[in-house]
């Protein structure tokens, strides 16, 4: 008997004990009708071949392990960044359970949202009653300052009209007539979570700015975009802008609501962009998006009201941060202070110290379009080669932007861009053309296991490592964090490769 109270074995060890191993072998041999081992090996080898790669890349209908989620997730995330705001997702209720779980698993934090719980009858008659009752219940129970309504694909397919429903709910006094209920249609069968983010931002800002008489001031709006590192990044953003003395408003600031303290109190809402600040943000002279693909429609709205706009691709690393700060300086008229120049110098110093371990390393990078762009750019700054860049939710236009970026550096030569491809495509690509390192999210661990390419987790979602999102990846300070994560992986790998006593340990060096 393997188990004991003294040393309790859980699943990580228990099933590798002889009793269990034998039991599982017996099950396989007798009852499973399993494929014989040689045939499994043959197919396994085939899945890593060029032949398989060609067939795999020729897929037209099947999608396997895509690195993207659906629109409402982005909408819920965007809404969570406004003061006292509850997301109300109109449609089937299971979706909301999924978004909440997904966000909680990444942030290790509460994620609140409600559903209008539509079922078969609503599929036939529409979900008006659900909206009317639902808004009243949410308002009474959770005392929000704003309710942001988005939709699941069920409500979209049957064609529920949010604007009309919300007006009718107000007529029926579900919520006070002047209560803020912005909305966004967020069909899951169009785009991905980054578009849901965009639509909800446009919905919220459009709601606040609808009848505003704009009086331009010197303030700058910053829209962070959908970002798993938002907690660390928004705080870093604030720190840099404060150091510059810029007057600014972060539109959708989730840094507090996804990082509440443990002190005995559950805060359903915390921090966030104040609603009056969101209203006044119409007066800003400019709106700067940190992620172009999260804000395409929102920036159109900003332009329409008369603001200047600028969009970045998740500014990270030296050049990314430089460009961002220069633009902010240009828009605000404020100089970049020496303190930030010093930080820049320290990041460059660290990169110089470690360049020997990074120069010429090859990478596969996947994630949302803006992240992949930024990551590839930073990798090239370290002398690395972003050999394969993939975004399941990347468009043709993104591919062109990526190709232009890669063409701008000798380290981008020969690198390939994969728009609209999934992680099973990436498996074939890396099985045939392996890289030294893989940068992505937790789902990448399957590729790491299958292909032996070390994974560096740097983008949403990260379920199997804790708290990294509390540290920034933006700015020069964030650049240091990213640099250290890459270096740790490189150096750990070097130790592993040289770490077998008496066999491979000739180069098991103390100083590297």
């Amino acid at each position: 008997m393997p188990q004991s109270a003294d040393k309790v074995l859980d699943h990580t060890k228990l099933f590798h004990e002889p009793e269990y191993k034998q039991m599982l072998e017996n099950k396989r041999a007798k009852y499973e009708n399993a494929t014989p081992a040689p045939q499994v090996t043959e197919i396994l080898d085939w899945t890593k071949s060029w032949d398989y790669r060609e067939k795999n890349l020729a897929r037209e209908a099947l999608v396997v392990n895509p690195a993207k989620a659906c629109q409402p997730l982005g909408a819920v995330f965007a809404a969570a960044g406004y003061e006292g705001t509850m997301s109300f997702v109109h449609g089937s209720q299971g979706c909301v359970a999924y978004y909440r779980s997904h966000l909680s698993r990444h942030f290790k934090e509460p994620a609140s949202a409600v559903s209008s719980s539509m079922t078969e009858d609503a599929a036939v008659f529409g979900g008006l009653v659900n909206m009317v009752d639902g808004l009243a219940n949410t308002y009474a129970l959770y005392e929000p300052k704003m309710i942001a309504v988005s939709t699941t694909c069920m409500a979209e397919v049957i064609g529920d009209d949010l604007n009309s429903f919300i007006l009718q709910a107000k007529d029926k006094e579900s919520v006070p007539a002047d209560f803020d209920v912005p909305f966004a249609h967020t069909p899951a069968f169009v785009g991905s979570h980054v578009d849901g983010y965009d639509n909800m931002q446009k919905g919220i800002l459009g709601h606040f700015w609808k009848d505003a008489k704009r009086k331009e001031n010197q303030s700058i709006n910053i829209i962070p975009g959908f970002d798993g590192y938002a907690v660390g990044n928004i705080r870093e953003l604030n720190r840099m802008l404060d150091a510059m003395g810029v007057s600014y408003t972060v539109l959708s600031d989730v840094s507090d609501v996804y990082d509440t303290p443990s002190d005995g109190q559950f805060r359903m809402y915390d921090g966030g962009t104040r609603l009056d600040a969101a209203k006044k943000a119409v007066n800003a002279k400019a709106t700067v998006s940190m992620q172009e693909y999260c804000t395409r429609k929102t920036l159109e709205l900003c332009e329409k009201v008369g603001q200047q706009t600028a969009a970045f691709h998740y500014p990270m690393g030296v050049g990314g941060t430089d460009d961002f700060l220069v633009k902010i300086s240009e828009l605000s008229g404020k100089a970049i202070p020496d303190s930030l120049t010093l930080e820049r110098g320290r990041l460059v110093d660290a990169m110089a110290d470690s360049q020997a371990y990074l120069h010429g390393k090859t990478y596969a990078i996947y994630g949302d379009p803006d992240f992949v762009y930024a990551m590839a750019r930073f990798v090239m700054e370290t002398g690395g080669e972003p050999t394969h860049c993939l975004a399941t939710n990347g468009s043709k236009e993104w591919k062109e932007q990526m190709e232009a970026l890669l063409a701008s550096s000798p380290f981008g030569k020969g690198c390939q861009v994969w728009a609209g491809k999934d992680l099973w495509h990436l498996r074939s690509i890396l099985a045939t053309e392996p890289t030294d390192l893989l940068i992505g999210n937790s789902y990448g661990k399957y590729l790491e296991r299958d292909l032996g390419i070390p994974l560096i987790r740097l983008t949403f979602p990260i379920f199997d490592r804790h708290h990294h999102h509390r540290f920034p990846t933006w700015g020069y300070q964030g650049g240091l964090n990213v640099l250290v994560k890459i270096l740790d992986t490189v150096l750990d790998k070097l130790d592993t490769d040289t770490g077998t006593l008496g066999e491979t340990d000739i180069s098991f060096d103390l100083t590297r």
Partner: protein
Amino acid sequence: MAKDLEDGADHTSLIEEVLAAYPKKAQKRRAKHLSTAGPVEDGETEIVSKCDTVKSNVKSVPGVMTIRGCAYAGSKGVVWGPVKDMVHISHGPVGCGHYSWSQRRNYYTGTTGVDSFVTFQFTTDFQEKDIVFGGDKKLEKTIDEINELFPLSKAISVQSECPIGLIGDDIEAVAKKKKKDIGKTIVPVRCEGFRGVSQSLGHHIANDCIRDWVLDGEGSEYEATDYDVNIIGDYNIGGDAWSSRILLEEIGLNVVGSWSGDATLAEMENAPKAKLNLIHCYRSMNYICRHMEENHGVPWMEYNFFGPSQIAASLRAIAAKFDKTIQDKAEEVIAKYQPLVDEVLAKYKPRLEGKKVMLYVGGLRPRHVVTAYHDLGMEIAGTGYEFAHGDDYKRTGEYVKEGTLIYDDVTGYELEKFIEKIRPDLVGSGIKEKYPTQKMGIPFRQMHSWDYSGPYHGYDGFAIFARDMDLAINNPVWGLFDAPWKKSA
């Protein structure tokens, strides 16, 4: 007669207090779902009296933050997803398959991507044109591509997401056609998320599809005996089905099918040939047991492998269905594990005795784990189900003490208030409930996923269960919440 739990009366006023926050219409609806376990009247059994007054399995109230999921979650996420040598297509937009990808820890052996596919996300990734023009053609092509790229997959299931039923696709016709084309079982499942009121209908629909599309399959050759049983309704979360299987094998039974944790298509097809179906999760798989009883003559019985009291009782009850050899072996096995049980209790009971627990889980565990806590000397202050039916609440009466707070389809608001007022020593629920509870300074264990631990079934699992409850409750972090300069304030 004194109530079993001293604060039973407080619970009644607590319910009134919580309901006061609702608008009238919602208040009336929610009142029927909240109760305390009643007394056992003379001449009645615990089954009919205690928890039979709670209304269940009805629509959730809109806008209240129900914790429930949907039919797709019940079918793909629970019943079908763990069947390892099949490819399960999340048919529709990308989200449903994405959020449920690799999240239930249904353990399995095999070569992932080659002969096993549990931790995959296969989807047809619907775009607007698929909604407008229908997705049947795309589904056909998807099946062909799966067959080409994953040749060792034994069968394919089509897990419908919301749009499928709304746009009028005929997935049954596609399944029949493609079965002819590729010669593999294809199971069309109508588990659109808007059907029914919770995951529960998804379980039922999934069971019906096993009945209609799988049970007539060829099965595989194996040496049948009089001791063949199936484990039904164990999803092998953290390896639960394995720490159960080992006990059943030790008492001399052969587990020919494991439904659906670590299952293969053949195991499902072979199931009607067994002598007895042993069902753990009654809520999600009783339907297929009843079907096999009526149509294949396979009797079924419920068992409970949480905690030593229920494990021993269950082993004896199972053995009683067989001959003396098995009965003797059951006693030997119970005796064999008794020293482990004694050691576990000696180590952990003093650290857990008298601790108060609140539970809120799916359709089985809110009652099934109660005795495991009792074995450790712990007390259940409240329990409730996301998606139980009346028969589950009846069965709950056997487990809980009078005065226990009972909540059906609890809302975020209610659960928070209940926890705040009762201040239990431990809450066992899901990921969405975990962090709010911990912020309040109350230890928590996820009781769907075993909080990434497990197994909790069987004797081996009980040791892990005891360890985990101890580490949750007795971690020093709970003493650090108050800053010293705030304590006196």
